[in-house]
């Protein structure tokens, strides 16, 4: 680290006096400005290379699929542009562009085809592209994939009449994400750091001597793809030397020479120093993103991964805290160098989303001892200064956390207005144990994607496999198998007027959910089989614990743990609606089911009194009222049992979770008025956040309701958005109360919580003058978005969400 020997700090100094500002660094502000403000460009480099490779080799049937994919990947990694951008301390980039959108023609790439010419001038999330690239996509790349992408392959497999395919295409009741991505996992970066890619290759080679021919083929594919990383890294090293020979600035020359040496060494070999460790992870990430989509591809427990290197460098005086800060800050900005590609229609569902690469800090070690360390605080400092959307930071909270840790978390939430989101060890570790993860591995959990807990590096969790619209199931029950906007898609559960008791009605809702769940999971399993052929992912397989011993790839169930995740959307709306029907129709007999149903069909237009009774006089979830919250508990238990009953295509089971990104808004648009007072087209509730119009008892009541839910039945995570007005926290004492509030919530058994700290005025102003608020962050559900990237609909929702103030 001698190249940056300019430090004034050392680790023994108090954290307080050790905060850095942009002015402490020569180029940090400039790099950050570029990453936040500059245009995102669609990058076709990957598509070009893999298309040409496959064309040359004769298409998808060239070789066994793992070998095909590995060779294809290695071929591309050899040729991938080796980028080192001005002043940056980490070599390599996800795409050939500085801030790029990776184009994956085998997934949803074709979905962008009609928009190629217009996507640079669409309203939100513009993508830049050159005329030449459009031409190449039109003429060379996309035609090749017309019969080889996920959608086409599944259509051919199951046929157009397939119920799952029809419902998937409608996107009213569920959405299987495999069209877009598998990802949603954490590669085993620990393995890369401990053994180096060369060491990992050695292990597979050694094992090949005692394996079956089939397994040998698989391991061969692993080795080929791993070799690709080394070649890519060598190219980065060469590029660093090339730039060093041409640069005039002496400091930069030394830096580049250092980077050349680092890239020569890692990730092929285990790193010795902090900088090397970070570069090792970054180079490996670059390679993984060429294999498959960059959505929810998460990094894991960065503070645990990096702390040994940090400690050693600091103790030996080889690096200062400031230098470590700068390297980590560059890493943070590099992580955001890619954005997922979302067609305009998808914007409605996934507005403003980044690539959701979750990073987790805090927690405990394998023995259960608190593991907050110096790098934990370094990460918080970096996040506080940079205020960027990606990566998505999650902080584990434990009873034995040092007070400094929770205080710093609160400060960073206040200063960024949004991040980190918090997850509680107290309930999350048992939730993971319950689904069969051993205690040691459960203690090692990190968040994937938005906020789904997973044991990193040894699990294939595909946590975002299915998004499930619960309120759609209710609409089907209310209309005997029809939705208002789509007829004959559900189970005919009978005319509601024939439900003589509440239990009959409630039973029908559960039956309907089971029916759709069956279709959704069957379809997802079909997709999984296609994926196994189209995208078997030898590289990710090779970097996952379990594949070596099982001799199976990731999609064959080779990981140590296998599961698929379902995100159930709008549970709060469903609970409220069921309770509302119970009170109005069955218990208090205020109105007949017929009249209630007519009012819903009429969107409450001539039923203002009924609407107000529902909003004001019928209790809603989130007010700490047992009778209502018990329905939520019952449904969560029901959904757990039903989901865990179904096996996936990898020998695992489906895990239920409750989060919605921005999909609740899209699902809300296509559903009509509901008995909880949701009007036609209005957004559904986000994650497990209670219905805003029904919240009457303040944040502690919301927390009490949420803490009452059985967290062990939500192994795929949950999201609670709490919005607080900035004005509540006028001084240090009041800020400390914020810490007390979430600590009490977690002590009571709450699982997760994330915050929006904003003035509604701020947001309104940003809606009017977006150009003045390029970096105003808001937390959606499990991820943070730039407010101005959201569509008007979402912006309004964020503003209208009940302000939890006095």
């Amino acid at each position, binding site marked *: 680290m001698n190249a940056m020997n300019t430090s004034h700090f050392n680790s023994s100094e108090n954290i307080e006096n050790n905060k850095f500002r942009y002015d402490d660094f020569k180029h940090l502000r400039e790099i950050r400005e570029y990453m936040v403000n500059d245009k995102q460009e669609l990058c076709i480099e990957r598509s070009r290379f893999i298309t040409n490779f496959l064309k040359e080799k004769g298409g998808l049937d060239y070789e066994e699929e793992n070998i095909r994919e590995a060779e294809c990947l290695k071929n591309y990694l050899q040729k991938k542009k080796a980028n080192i951008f001005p002043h940056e301390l980490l070599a390599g980039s996800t795409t050939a562009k500085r801030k790029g959108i990776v184009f994956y023609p085998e997934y949803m790439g074709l979905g962008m085809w009609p928009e190629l010419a217009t996507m640079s001038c669409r309203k939100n999330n513009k993508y830049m592209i050159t005329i030449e690239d459009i031409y190449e996509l039109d003429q060379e790349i996309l035609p090749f994939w017309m019969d080889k992408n996920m959608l086409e392959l599944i259509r051919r497999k199951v046929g157009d009449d397939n119920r799952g395919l029809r419902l998937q295409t409608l996107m009213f009741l569920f959405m299987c994400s495999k069209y877009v991505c598998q990802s949603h996992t954490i590669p085993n970066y620990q393995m890369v750091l401990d053994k180096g890619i060369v060491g990992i290759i050695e292990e597979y080679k050694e094992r090949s001597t005692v394996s079956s021919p089939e397994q040998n083929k698989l391991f061969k594919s692993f080795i080929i793809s791993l070799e690709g990383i080394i070649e890519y890294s060598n190219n980065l090293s060469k590029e660093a030397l090339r730039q060093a020979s041409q640069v005039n600035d002496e400091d930069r020359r030394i830096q580049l020479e250092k980077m050349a040496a680092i890239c020569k060494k890692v990730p092929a070999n285990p790193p010795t120093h902090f900088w090397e460790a970070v570069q090792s992870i970054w180079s490996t990430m670059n390679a993984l993103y060429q294999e498959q989509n960059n959505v929810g591809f998460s990094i894991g427990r960065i503070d645990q991964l990096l702390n040994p290197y940090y400690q050693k460098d600091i103790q030996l005086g080889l690096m200062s805290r400031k230098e470590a800060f700068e390297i980590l800050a560059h890493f943070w900005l590099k992580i955001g160098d890619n954005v997922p590609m979302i067609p305009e229609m998808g914007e409605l569902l996934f507005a403003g989303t980044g690539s959701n690469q979750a990073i987790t800090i805090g927690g405990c070690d394998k023995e259960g001892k608190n593991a907050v360390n110096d790098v934990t605080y370094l990460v918080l400092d970096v996040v506080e200064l940079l205020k960027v959307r990606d990566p998505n930071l999650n902080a584990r909270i434990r009873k034995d956390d040092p007070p400094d840790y929770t205080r710093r978390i609160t400060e960073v939430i206040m200063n960024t207005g949004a991040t980190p989101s918090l997850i509680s060890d107290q309930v999350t570790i048992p939730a993971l144990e319950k689904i069969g993860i051993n205690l040691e591995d459960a203690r090692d959990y990190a968040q994937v994607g938005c906020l789904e807990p997973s044991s990193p590096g040894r699990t294939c969790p595909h946590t975002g496999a299915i998004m499930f619209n619960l309120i759609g199931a209710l609409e089907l029950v209310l209309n005997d198998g029809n939705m208002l906007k789509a007829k004959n898609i559900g189970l005919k559960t009978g005319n509601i007027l024939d439900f003589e008791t509440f239990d009959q009605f409630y039973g029908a809702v559960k039956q309907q959910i089971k029916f759709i769940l069956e279709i959704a999971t069957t379809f997802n399993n079909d997709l999984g089989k296609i994926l196994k052929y189209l995208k078997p992912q030898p590289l990710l397989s090779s970097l996952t614990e379990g594949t070596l011993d099982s001799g199976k790839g990731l999609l064959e169930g080779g990981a140590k743990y296998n599961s698929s995740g379902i995100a159930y959307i709008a549970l709060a709306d469903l609970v409220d609606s069921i309770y509302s029907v119970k009170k109005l129709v069955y218990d208090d007999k205020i109105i007949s089911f017929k009249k209630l149903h007519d009012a819903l069909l009429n969107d409450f237009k001539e039923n*203002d*009194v*009924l609407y*107000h*009774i529902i909003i*004001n*006089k019928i209790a809603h979830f989130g007010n*700490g009222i047992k009778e209502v919250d018990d329905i939520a508990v019952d449904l969560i238990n029901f959904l757990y049992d039903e989901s865990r009953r179904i096996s996936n295509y990898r020998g695992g089971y489906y895990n239920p979770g409750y989060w919605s990104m921005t999909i609740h808004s899209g699902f809300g648009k296509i559903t009509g008025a509901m008995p909880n007072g949701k009007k036609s087209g209005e957004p559904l509730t986000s994650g497990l956040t209670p219905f805003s119009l029904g919240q009457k*008892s*303040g*944040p*502690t*009541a919301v927390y*009490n309701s949420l803490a009452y839910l059985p967290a062990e039945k939500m192994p795929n995570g949950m999201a609670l958005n709490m919005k607080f007005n900035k004005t*509540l926290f*006028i001084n240090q004492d*009041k800020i*400390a*109360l914020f810490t*007390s*509030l979430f*600590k*009490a919530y977690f*002590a*009571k058994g709450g699982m997760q919580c994330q915050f929006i700290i904003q003035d509604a005025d701020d947001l309104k102003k940003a809606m009017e003058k977006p150009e003045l608020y390029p970096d105003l962050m808001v937390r959606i559900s499990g991820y943070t978005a730039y407010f101005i990237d959201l569509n008007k609909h979402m912006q309004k929702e964020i503003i209208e969400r009940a302000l939890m103030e*006095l």
Partner: protein
Amino acid sequence: MIKGLIFDIEKYAIHDGPGIRTLVFFKGCPLNCLWCQNPESINPNPELSYKKSKCINCSKCSESCPEHAIIKNPRNFIKNKCKVQDGCRICSKACPSTALEIAGQEITVDELLTIILEDKEYYESSNGGVTCSGGEPTFQWSFVKKFLLACKSNGISTAIETCGYFNPQITEEIFEACDIVLFDLKHLDNKIHVKITGRQNEMILKNLENLISIFKDVDNKKIIIRMPLVPYNDSKQHLLRIEEFLIEKEIFSLVLLPYNSLYKQKLINFRLKRTKLKISSYSKEQLETIKNYFKNIEISIGG
């Protein structure tokens, strides 16, 4: 069973006493301050509130009223026919939009305690607790005392906000039931005090002195002196007198609660007639100036 008459419960209150607290607002007050921020708290009986902005003109209230006190909508309200003071709640129950609400709900100690206990973990994690406000909580002392002692026996820290106008004989009991007393001073000059609150200040000052002497140097017990800041008491001369008065009592901090006019909407909702005050809220600069008058005691603004 003894019942209290309350008009609101506010959870997650972080501005009245330390930590996260639940505030219980009791009805009835012996004082009648011109600027009273909770004018619905003064009358010790239930009162009907009508929020016009929430009314959807459905006439459910007039249809349901057995006394025919409401004709079509609550804008045509015949007060002397209304039986709200006798416990009638029919119209507010019938109102779907919460435009009609009743300030003044009877509650038992157990019922209130159940609500308070829901947030126990938050008090514990923040050194908060329960605060009885009003109105004047000592106005219903036998209930409040029982309630506060019940809180204490459940391990919850207790506080009251008082105007100090209470029977001196209960001073010891206040000490026993409360960990914190938030004591509101209004004015040191008796004549002005009468003019702006309707009562003399002699008993208030005497009660304060007594409380200070018992609370003094007792571990985990505290008196916090507060003063609403209104144009009647904000002169430099009076504020310096306050400072001197407090120092004499060996009290070295004061919380100022700047007047705001939010209560005016309540006057309309409750059809209460009061002298119109021609004063506006304090600016930041004004508050800074006022703060600077004090040289020897610590001033904090807000609640």
